[in-house]
């Protein structure tokens, strides 16, 4: 990002000119200054907003004490159900926040054509269980990832969505930068939902990257309960440290318990087929070959 050099000097002088400040204040002032300069390129006039996930433990791990609107977030799902479920849960938080703010609650979900991959398709009545109103959803279905990402970018250009989701298999750095910029300009939260196996080690301009996989729910589970539990890894967050939790979604909010990283099971590429329908190309390889794609983020543990 190009910084206007002539604008820095007086601003810096003003923040350092005052005496009697602690180092922490200095740091905060500098951060604010950097943020201000960075935002100069996007004259949106929007103040950055954050949505609480309803669980302080997660919120504090995120910059701004919540999930940033006007940013790109990447969710890598170890299995389709967990990915779609976590996505729906995040949307429910955004929906709730938009509702209290009186803003539009419409969502755009860009997805592959039904039946294009072996994975299942989003089932709208299931969204109701997360407290979402399916009538607020608009779906755009594309044949190729670039069509889906294009739909997302178009959606981000329109004021009037509470969130825009794109369900893709691959996302390169260039595309993620474009989308991050579009999200920032619009002030709308953008989510990339993708299979974990294709997300490994790729650089991305997303503000946060999450990894979600299923975990057994707490017992006893009530009959008809809408509760869902996931192992959630905040793999990457700009300006923060990565964290791991076991989260439970219940009654419209998350509750989290810290989880040691060693608990993280290896991504099961054993059959591969149910990870968003990824073709089982990884299925019959040797362990050595597999480890190169399995190692998502840190804490790779190979189960023999």
């Amino acid at each position, binding site marked *: 990002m190009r910084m206007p050099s002539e604008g820095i000097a007086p601003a810096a002088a003003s923040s350092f000119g005052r005496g009697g400040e602690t180092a922490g204040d200095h740091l905060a002032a500098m951060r604010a200054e950097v943020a201000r300069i960075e935002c100069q390129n996007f004259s949106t006039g929007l103040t950055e907003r954050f949505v609480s996930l309803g669980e302080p433990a997660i919120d504090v791990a995120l910059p701004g004490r919540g999930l940033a609107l006007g940013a790109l977030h990447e969710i890598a799902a170890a*299995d*389709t*159900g*967990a990915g*779609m479920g*976590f996505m*729906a*849960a995040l949307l429910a938080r955004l929906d709730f926040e938009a509702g209290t703010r009186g803003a*539009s609650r*419409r969502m755009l979900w860009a997805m592959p*054509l*039904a*039946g294009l991959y072996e*994975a*299942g*398709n*989003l*089932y*709208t*009545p*299931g*969204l*109701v*269980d*997360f407290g979402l*109103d*399916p*009538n607020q*959803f*608009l*779906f755009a*279905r*594309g044949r190729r990832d670039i*069509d889906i990402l*294009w*739909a997302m970018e*178009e959606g981000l*250009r*329109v*004021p*009037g969505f509470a969130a825009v989701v794109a369900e893709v298999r691959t996302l390169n750095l260039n595309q993620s930068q474009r989308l991050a910029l579009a999200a920032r300009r619009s002030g709308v939260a953008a989510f990339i939902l993708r299979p974990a196996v294709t997300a490994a080690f790729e650089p991305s301009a997303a503000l946060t990257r999450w990894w979600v996989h*299923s*975990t*057994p*729910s707490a*017992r006893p*589970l009530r*009959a*008809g*309960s*809408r509760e*869902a*539990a*996931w*192992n959630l890894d905040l793999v990457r967050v700009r300006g923060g440290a990565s964290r791991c939790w076991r989260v439970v*979604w219940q009654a419209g909010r998350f509750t989290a318990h810290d989880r040691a990283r060693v608990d993280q*099971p290896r991504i099961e590429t*054993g*059959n591969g*087929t149910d990870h968003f329908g990824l073709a089982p190309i990884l299925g019959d390889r040797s362990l050595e070959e597999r480890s190169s794609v399995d190692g998502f983020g840190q804490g790779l543990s190979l189960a023999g």
Partner: protein
Amino acid sequence: MDLAKDSVSPAEPFVIVTALQGGLRVAAADAAAEAAGVVPGMALADARALYPGLRVAAEDSLADQQALAKLAAWCSRYSPWASLDRYGERALGLFLDITGCAHLFGGEEALLADLIRRLAVLGVTARAAAAATPGAAWALARFASTPAAARGTVVASEATITVLADLPVLALRIEPETAASLDRVGLKTIGALAQVPRATLTARYGAKLLDRLDAAFGLVDEPISPLAPAPALRASLIFAEPVAHGDDIERSADRLLAILIQDLAGTGLGARRMTLAFYRTDGEVVSIAIGTSRPTRDLKHLRRLFAERLDKLDLGFGADAAVLAATVVEKLPPEQIRMRAVGESRRRPDAQSLLTIESGILFTASSSRGTGDVDADLAALADRLGNRLGITNVVYPMPVASHLPERAVALHAVLRLASIGGETAPAPWHRGLPRPVCLFLKPEPIVVMAPTPDHPPVLFRWRKRVHRVTWSEGPERVGVEWWRVASPGAGAASFATRDYFRVEDETGRRFWLYRSGLYRASAAPVMVTEDRDADPEVPHRDHRTHLTLLPAVAAAASRFATPESGPAWFLHGLFA
């Protein structure tokens, strides 16, 4: 119009032959061949006797039809009502309804002259006639003297009867046998035929002959049905020089849009579907069709929809005409329109201006922007998405009153309905037992081990992996929709009662399974349907001792429905 393609040097006589009446006969002859005495219908041997150096080609009626259809599309530059002449088994010409179109080209004579000249450039020798009825035009194009027809004959409607009177009866589009029979009794011309009492003619030759006579004279109406439905509104441009460049194309599209939008505004209509067609100099027609989710005459929006695809248009060596047609229109009353200057912010919502293009200030009309401000933006977005992804791929969900999970939601294309605003109160969404967040398009067959009669599986295999069930809920019985007719090939299985179970495996993945149908009373207490050899780690010893095991049966789901093996199991969805 009678059309014959002169792709070869016109000096050499050339005929097209077809197998007819037990031999090769001349189907069509060019001018040189006709000068040598060769006429259609003549046996090829006779024609060769007249002119030994005759060049011959076999008839390809399919290609003829396709070429004619192409030519009909090309002719829509003159009038939207262009159709093939369906007389006889082969299409031999084109009909154009030029009512109300001729003045755009400087009159009927000028239109015909332009048509013949442009066809000649394309290498088509045409005979054309304009008359008050299709029958008269047909007769004149074929039976008028050759120089007149090649120039384009125009007959005023009051002169129709006198002009037709001198033409042979064959000009009435009747069977050659009928014509020959009339000829034998001395009725050689249409005029002579018209003198005969009608009752006599009907008794001798049937009603068809009189129908043709009346149609030619305009006593009965003979409609021309166009190849494509005629658009509600259209605007056309004819270029002095062929255009092929991006800027010119864009400018012409803009001009057409401006004209059409004015027409739409004048009639209180908004466009839902539009087609922009360019007529290439080589006779091809290339077009772009766009759709919108609500009636619009917003210039900026429509331009954007077209602009995305204009650059992909292949104009070859250039196009000499462009037609923009609003093929589907809906009411968009003028009182809902507010003018807003393009490039200005919405701070000036009520600028009272007319839609003016020439003055350099461009105004756009957009639908009422009160509460619908966001909706209008979304509708515009849906249009853009739909025009790239496909109209059926921008959808919104609507609940359907059905217990079958795959039928409980219907996806409606945004561009198919009036708007995405959802004016009608939708049916309530399912609020009963939990539903999965992810559903498979086709339920996937699984191999299960489950106690009878109504118990959830203990173990199941899906996509080559064994899942051990640690928690389950159910069954939720979903009955048969017996009132619906089974889709062909679906078989009895689609009509079986389903028992749905929500299960969780040891890794915490939550599935939605169902058993299709019920166990029969005679079934064994436990059904084990799995392929034991391929899967040695399945712990058979875990089963409680009072259960007996059935021998392994094939994993193929198709065999599950057999009475011996019990009902089939499927995995239908994934929970969060």
